[in-house]
């Protein structure tokens, strides 16, 4: 038993750190440093640089273009990438559809999609939630009727992140409305977003950003070859996808980056006539966050190593702990940044700046974006199963109550 990194792990971490430092484009890093979420082109550019290095598909097996890392290495890579203020790789492409196709896809599907996903030649989005099916996903209603070689899809999806950028969408549809159990009538389809009958309607989030969408399907024809796994067995695929190694869900590196940024900026703002960084209460708040992040870091490595051992594919229920504690820290750390920025965090600067003919004002941008990420990450305890749902999962899976 040893919590320290092995020399190999340290060497690996240093290699990753050096590569990101040397190859992350300066303009992207600057935007990320100011707290902006990456634009599509930022994510694409960075993921292609990683892909050339063979690192983009960090959790894929070698044969499909993955680096063949063990879970600890993946963990290190994700943390370094987040702490370096680099865009995160597209989770839809890398941690969702990639592993799904590798596990359930036909050879044709693998050949057609995997390498393009790794390189973001195709941008993927996820069509799971519906207005009536949020936490209760299995109640989804979007229907797919089989008409000779096609499924005809009708219905509506919601919270479809980046659908407005997407080339493809993986969708859960109901192919058998009469199945005994709701879970048994669902299939998993790959849908070309250019197919006629698809309408994407933006949803503006409370931070003013456009990440989410509603997607309407009106007699959308999807070739049967675009179904993954057997008909009416889509729930297995969804469960695999949602459970599939949830290494990343804590997004600890992001919280660490936020706390580091808060400390950096706390040197430049005032509190009772001194730099905020000198205020005892602020230091206590940071120290408490650093304690909680350290605990989560170790718990995360415990879960990851355990996962590396038990190869039954089932997710460790403790990954719910990562989700809950990880999102609590994401929210606490972004809240900290906003509080550091103080009154300057309240203006809608970032948007205003564009309009106002003034010289750029990085500090103001950072301050405004600190609120942007605070607001946007209020959703962190909601998406991917609310923290309340996570505790229900722990109740069933671990407490067995």
């Amino acid at each position, binding site marked *: 038993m040893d919590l320290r990194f092995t020399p190999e792990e340290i060497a690996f971490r240093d290699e990753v750190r050096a590569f990101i430092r040397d190859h992350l484009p300066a303009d992207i890093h600057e935007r990320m440093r100011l707290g902006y979420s990456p634009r599509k082109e930022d994510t694409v550019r960075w993921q292609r640089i990683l892909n050339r290095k063979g690192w983009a598909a960090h959790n894929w097996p070698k044969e499909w273009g993955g680096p063949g890392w063990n879970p600890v290495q993946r963990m290190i890579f994700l943390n370094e990438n987040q702490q370096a203020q680099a865009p995160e790789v597209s989770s839809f492409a890398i941690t969702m559809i990639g592993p799904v196709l590798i596990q359930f896809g036909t050879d044709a599907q693998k050949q057609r999609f995997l390498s393009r996903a790794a390189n973001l030649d195709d941008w993927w989005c996820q069509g799971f939630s519906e207005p009536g099916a949020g*936490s209760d996903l299995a109640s989804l209603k979007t229907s797919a009727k089989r008409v000779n070689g096609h499924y005809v899809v009708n219905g509506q999806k919601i919270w479809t992140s980046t659908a407005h950028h997407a080339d493809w969408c993986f969708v859960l549809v109901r192919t058998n409305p009469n199945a005994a159990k709701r879970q048994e009538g669902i299939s998993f389809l790959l849908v070309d977003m250019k197919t006629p009958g698809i309408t994407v309607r933006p949803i503006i989030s409370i931070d003013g950003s456009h990440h989410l969408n509603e997607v309407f399907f009106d007699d959308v024809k999807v070739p049967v070859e675009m179904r993954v796994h057997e008909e009416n067995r889509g729930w297995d695929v969804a469960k695999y996808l949602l459970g599939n190694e949830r290494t990343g869900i804590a997004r600890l590196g992001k919280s660490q980056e936020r706390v580091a940024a808060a400390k950096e900026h706390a040197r430049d703002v005032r509190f009772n006539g001194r730099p905020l960084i000198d205020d005892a209460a602020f230091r206590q708040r940071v120290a408490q966050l650093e304690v909680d992040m350290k605990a989560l870091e170790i718990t995360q490595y415990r879960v990851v190593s355990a996962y590396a051992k038990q190869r039954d594919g089932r997710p460790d229920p403790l990954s719910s702990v990562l989700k809950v504690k990880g999102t609590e820290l994401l929210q606490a750390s972004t809240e900290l940044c906003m509080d550091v920025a103080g009154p300057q965090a*309240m203006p809608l600067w970032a948007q205003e700046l564009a309009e106002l003919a003034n010289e750029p004002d990085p500090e103001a941008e950072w301050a405004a974006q600190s609120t942007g990420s605070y607001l946007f990450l209020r959703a962190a305890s909601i998406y991917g199963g609310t923290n309340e749902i996570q505790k229900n999962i722990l109740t069933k899976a671990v407490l067995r109550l």
Partner: protein
Amino acid sequence: MDFDLSDDQRLLQDSVTRLMADRYTFDTRKGFLKHPSGWSPDIWDRYAELGLLGLPFAEQHGGFGGGPVEVMLVMQQLGRALALEPYLATIVLAGTAVRLAGSDAQQSAIFPKIAEGRMKLAFAHGERQARYDITDVLTTAKRNAGGWVLDGAKSVVLHGDSADELVISARTAGERDAAAGITLFLVDASAPGVARRGYALRDESRAAEVSLTGVHVPDADVLGEVGNGLPIIEQVIEAGIAAMGAEAVGAMEVLHEMTLDYSRTREQFGRPIGQNQVVQHRLADMLMSLEQGRSMTMLATMSVTEPDATQRARDMSMAKVGYGQAARFVSQQAIQLHGGIGMTEELAVGHYFRRCMVIEHTFGDTAFHLARLAEQVE
């Protein structure tokens, strides 16, 4: 100890409540946002008709001599409606400055116009480098023939963009952070050398960056005693803390009502989410926070007229911490219980959330006021 409202107060409460119910739904509000000023001049006239714009001013100046409780009743309803108009900026903040520091001539010149809705003010004190430090004033006022010349910049001036007159603080003496040497000036917003950059805050209310370049102010427009503006500034901010508390209580009430309704109607796993005990207890916790926040707002309201400045400052800090923490908890949980839909611009909940957020970060956040209280622990 008496928590009853007088008949006049109840009358006032009813009339404001009715006005907002009739004219200020979340949808009509969307329309008001489209107006170039970012709020509704039409509603502003209604406020004038109801006498809200002259509420706290003396009768001989066209006001109604209302006190902190009257202001609380109005602000609570404005909070419930997320009202966008410059009531806090004009009536509560700058209005208090003029009321406490203004000569009879100044008050007679200004208050009737305000009461009739013909003039709006803004309180231009905060500076970008100051964050929450109220003595951190770098804007200077230098003596010149028959008046003063102002240079500097003011930041996040609430409704500074639509103000006709600005109440501006500047240093006539003393170093940065010195308590003495700060003077208040009444400045025409269109005076030469005054440049304003208006924008929306995260809650869609308006504010402005104000830059002052060689702005000449005649002696007649000095507000109060030269070099002794700080006590006035403190009372202005205290009036603001009390008024924003009432606004926050109104916002929390609506957040709690909306979340309660949603928990009754939103179904998951075949039943309303409000059937989940965890949701029920969360709503109970929100209710308790709301009531504790309401109590602290009452404390602030009562303390506005407390003569002892030390006691007053202490009560205000307690109140700001108390209702600020309550508003943060209630608004965060309102979004959490709404789930995804609560994260969208379309729903009102996110707007109330952001109003609570802006209130918490105005005139000292929780950490700032808790630190003030901690210093005094003995």
